[in-house]
């Protein structure tokens, strides 16, 4: 993380007054968010809400990576996309909506999805990543870059009315490749989704990023929350690092 750009202004203190009261956060926590740079990989159903909550919380800089233009079928969940912007770049709509909320935010628009070709460059530009990509190929590329550069990675995912979320702290916790070294063959690009489900997970993902950046609370390091909103059942599972993981290769672990 770079040294503080500037201390909090009076306007920022006024905006964040109610969260400055959160025990364990305070001005020091707010300053950390202001100094932070977050990569959101895709600003779709999940990432839109992650980015919006992080903009609201006062993160200083965000890199938004998402290819393509807004389609009708985005609008049931991708809350940074608007009807009047159909057919225009998703990252442009996302930027406009985020700046409406927080004009102090610095945004870097990347009209590309994450791949092996750009992951290392994108990760190198930020302090933390929130991964909201719909393909395991993107997640595995992001994981490789994040683990390689020692950057924390919040992994949020959903399917139907279900969701999974965990936080990867390189060197400490299992990584994405520990859990699934290869893209699972059963995963399909098009998945059933309600916006309220992706939005729920997006809020949790944003909270994880805020916690890791500010030192607040206990992130989901080595733990995964699974939830099923059809039955409102929530579980916390303890994850295991894979000793022979090709990405985080942990020579001290049992295999």
């Amino acid at each position: 993380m770079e040294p503080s750009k500037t201390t909090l202004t009076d306007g920022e203190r006024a905006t964040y007054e109610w969260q400055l009261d959160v025990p364990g956060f305070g001005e020091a926590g707010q300053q950390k968010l202001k100094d932070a740079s977050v990569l959101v990989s895709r600003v779709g159903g999940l990432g839109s809400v992650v980015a919006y909550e992080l903009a609201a919380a006062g993160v200083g800089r965000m890199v938004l990576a998402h290819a393509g233009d807004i389609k009708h079928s985005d609008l049931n969940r991708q809350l940074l996309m608007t009807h009047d912007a159909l057919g225009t770049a998703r990252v442009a709509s996302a930027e406009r909506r985020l700046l409406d909320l927080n004009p102090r935010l610095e945004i870097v628009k990347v009209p590309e999805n994450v791949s092996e070709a750009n992951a290392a460059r994108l990760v190198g530009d930020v302090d933390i990543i929130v991964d909201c990509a719909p393909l395991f190929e993107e997640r595995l590329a992001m994981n490789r870059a994040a683990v390689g550069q020692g950057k924390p990675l919040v992994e949020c995912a959903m399917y139907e009315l279900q969701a999974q979320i965990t936080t990867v702290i390189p060197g400490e916790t299992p990584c994405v490749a520990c859990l699934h070294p290869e893209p699972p063959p059963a995963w399909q690009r098009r998945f059933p989704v309600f916006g309220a489900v992706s939005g729920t997970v997006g809020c949790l993902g944003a909270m994880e990023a805020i916690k890791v950046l500010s030192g607040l609370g206990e992130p989901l390091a080595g733990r995964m929350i699974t939830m099923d909103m059809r039955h409102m059942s929530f579980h916390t599972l303890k994850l295991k690092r894979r000793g022979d993981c090709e990405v985080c290769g942990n020579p001290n672990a049992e295999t």
Partner: protein
Amino acid sequence: MKVEVEYTAQLKVKTGVSADSYELDEGARVSDLIKAVAAQHDIAEFLPSSLLCFVGGTQADDDQSLSDGDSVTLLSPISGG
């Protein structure tokens, strides 16, 4: 011995049930349970590798021994954004 199995994610949709239970021989391991589940439900698309198993909420390897009354969660990875 009897173990309870709960399904999550795509696996839950595929099996069509939230949970069921299995009678296994004493000394059965996670791999034996997964064979028993595969005999009951069509989960071939998640085998052999894209299925995680948790016993009592903690991730378990295929060779971990099971005990009577264990509560097992089977999870298939999801990636929807």
